[in-house]
């Protein structure tokens, strides 16, 4: 890290816990003076002649040619399946310590703080398993259709992959995303507060096509049970409305390749706009029925406790939500000056039409730029310019979707639902910036 601190032309303020007592006093007295002292101190500490020389003549990154400019590089196919740079190791899926007790029934979160655009790299797609994951043999995988259909049928992967396919970009968000924050701030970074969100291009067959083939009774059969092939044989009731819309897919592709095993290889349900638990992985069976099933994960979990003691059951749609991914909690701003505030917005009801950003905790707002593509039930990237004057700030984003719904604040959400519902927290997120440049997670009403 020393090389970063001493980089000419850009001086990084050391985090609080690196500072001596005198330096902390200096910070409190005024930032500029401190920066100058810190720079001198850093140069002195690195008093190797070459560095001092470089500081005078220019940047050693320019003046001293690096090995990659002066030697032969690696051949093709050195990594037959390519991997991220070794400098990118910081961005990994991570568990939140203490959230769950066993790895087979747990969550790993997507590192949203470091991602760009709207597509989540497949290896960083968040995970939620209920009974561990398997690498399922596709040649032995079957999809069965039964219940209120004329023909109960079985399909192999060969069958499904022969059918006409569609590819669509959609977000998937766990119903419990941001669930730890209902009552108070609990986690430090956007990875843990919002990282049960991913967005991918999925390829597969509309479930409607397959149900048509089997002669589904759409009149009586208003509910569909989806079931997985894993140990939990996860089951969820899916609304026939969504299947009839053609949006629900039986998908095998994700971001141009097959699904990853952790995401349901070789087949999963894609239910755009609906919480992740309904996107049943390792999909083995679809049953058409005239009543919902009240399976464990819609009768004991993924139910929202209201203040009057009632639970909302079959809550499925993910309402409009957004979050600033950078600058965000646990990050440090390098210096005063220009920043690109960047984040994601999404809605389970359709397209994001607008995102507003506040840097003063919600007193005043400015409209952010939506980057293309802006797609229905997909993550949408927003950006907005910000010049940080070195003073405390509170960053917020607020999304609006094409149904006219405006993302609520914590006060509004808690007034309607209390603080114990665990699921479906889509409140406006606040990140506090202090003089040192440190960003942290706070809640304002």
């Amino acid at each position, binding site marked *: 890290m020393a090389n970063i601190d001493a980089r000419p032309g850009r001086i990084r303020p050391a985090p609080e816990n690196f500072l001596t007592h005198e330096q902390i006093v200096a910070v409190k007295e005024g930032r500029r003076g401190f920066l100058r002292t810190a720079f001198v101190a850093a140069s002195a500490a690195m008093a190797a002649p070459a560095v001092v020389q470089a500081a005078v003549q220019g940047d050693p990154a320019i003046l001293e040619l690096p090995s990659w400019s002066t030697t032969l590089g690696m051949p093709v196919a050195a990594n037959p399946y390519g991997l991220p740079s070794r400098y990118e190791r910081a961005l990994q899926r991570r568990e939140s310590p203490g959230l769950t007790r066993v790895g087979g029934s747990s969550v790993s979160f997507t590192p949203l703080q470091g991602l760009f655009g709207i597509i989540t790299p497949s290896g960083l797609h968040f995970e939620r398993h209920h*009974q561990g994951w398997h690498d399922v043999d596709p*040649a032995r995988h079957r999809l*069965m259709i039964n219940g209120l259909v004329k023909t*109960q049928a079985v399909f192999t992967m060969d069958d499904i992959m022969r059918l006409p396919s569609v590819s669509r970009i959609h977000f998937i968000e766990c119903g419990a995303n941001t669930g730890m924050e209902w009552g108070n701030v609990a986690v430090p970074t956007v990875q843990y507060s919002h990282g049960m969100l991913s967005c991918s291009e999925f390829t597969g067959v509309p479930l409607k096509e397959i149900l048509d083939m089997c002669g589904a009774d759409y009149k009586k059969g208003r509910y569909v049970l989806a079931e997985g092939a894993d*140990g939990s044989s996860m089951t969820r009731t899916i609304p026939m409305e969504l299947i009839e819309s053609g949006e629900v897919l039986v998908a095998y592709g994700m971001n141009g390749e097959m699904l990853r095993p952790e995401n349901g290889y070789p087949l999963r349900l894609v239910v755009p706009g609906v919480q992740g638990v309904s996107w049943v992985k390792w999909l083995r069976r679809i049953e058409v029925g005239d009543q919902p099933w009240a399976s464990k994960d819609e009768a004991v979990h993924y139910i929202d406790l209201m203040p009057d003691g009632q*639970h909302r059951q079959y809550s499925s749609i993910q309402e409009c939500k957004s979050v600033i991914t950078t600058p965000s909690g646990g990050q440090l701003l390098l210096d005063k000056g220009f920043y690109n505030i960047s984040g994601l917005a999404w809605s389970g009801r359709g397209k994001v039409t607008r995102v507003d950003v506040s840097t003063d905790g919600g007193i005043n707002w400015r409209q952010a730029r939506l980057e293309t593509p802006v797609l229905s039930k997909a993550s949408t990237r927003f950006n907005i310019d910000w010049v940080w004057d070195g003073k405390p700030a509170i960053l917020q984003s607020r999304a*609006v979707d094409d149904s006219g719904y405006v993302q609520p604040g914590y006060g509004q959400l808690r007034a309607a639902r209390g603080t114990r519902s665990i699921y479906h927290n889509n409140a406006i997120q606040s990140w506090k910036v202090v003089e040192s440049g440190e960003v942290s997670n706070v809640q304002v009403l």
Partner: protein
Amino acid sequence: MSRFSKTLMALLLAGVTTSAIAFERYKGIGRVATEAEVAAWDIDVRPDFKGLPKGSGTVDDGIELWETHCTSCHGSFGESNEVFTPIVGGTSADDIKTGHVKSLISGSSPQRTTLMKVATVSTLFDYIQRAMPWTAPKSLKPDEVYAILAYLLNLADIVPADFVLSDANIREVQERMPNRNGMTTDHGMWPGVAAAKAGMGNGGKPDVSNVACMKDCKKEVEIVSALPDYAQDAHGNLAEQNRLVGQTRGKRTSAPGEPAEQGEPSVAAAALALANAKGCMACHGVASKLVGPGYNEIAQKYQAQADAEEMLVAKVKLGGQGNWGAIPMPPQAHVADEDIRLLVQWVLQGAKAQ
């Protein structure tokens, strides 16, 4: 021969008659399911008990089956919080009368147990039959599921100790479920006006309505919650969770002088990842007993035993029981010998994460 025709051949050899689906557009794709196939997979049980298999089981048999198959993770009385939240607790005789669990309103119970939440007894039958025991799902016969469920219901005084639960009387039990009236679908998160008319959802009407105010939206900003001190370091070193270039860096949240933040993962970190990948962590915690002993307990037990490493390598490979209790560890023969050795060394050295 293509895989497709191989499959067909296998089916024909197995004497399965397959017929095509009569759907003009997608000729040759898919086939009709046999009755036996549907029966093998269609094991779901609905709230109206459609799908419930015939059978029965006593509370007494349930005690024994529970002890054998379930206690290790859920505790003798379904009260354990070790592997998952408690199944039993927090319901009262009054709740059985009203069908509303009162402690859900007051929040007086420290945790919401399964029986406090679940409205439908079918859910429990369905779930235990399809998914439990966690490490051997779908191994219980219907009578065993009835017996275990009878025991769980008895623990919450929903049925008496001499009860025989069966497909014939499960409807009566439903009428005693403590939270049977505790669910509502009056919310905006199920789509469709038609569905709302049929009693499911409110047609998509949200329960909050914010406005997109742009200027002077409030007088002052009150921070009502901030990250508590104890939570600052709970997620590891945030400096290592952020990119090393760009407009920000991660905040350093563990004490300076802790292990290097770049470079190869430490041996311990690699071993922990391996233990996760090989499924060891499904049964072992680092500090506490799950199905098998906690790794710290193992390290402590064999602290002074010179040949412990050799003994444990063989034990993990071949499986066995008796050193910690009656529950056996299955053979871990799917793990390569050198990986087993690495894991055992790591366990004996205290199973550190870094």
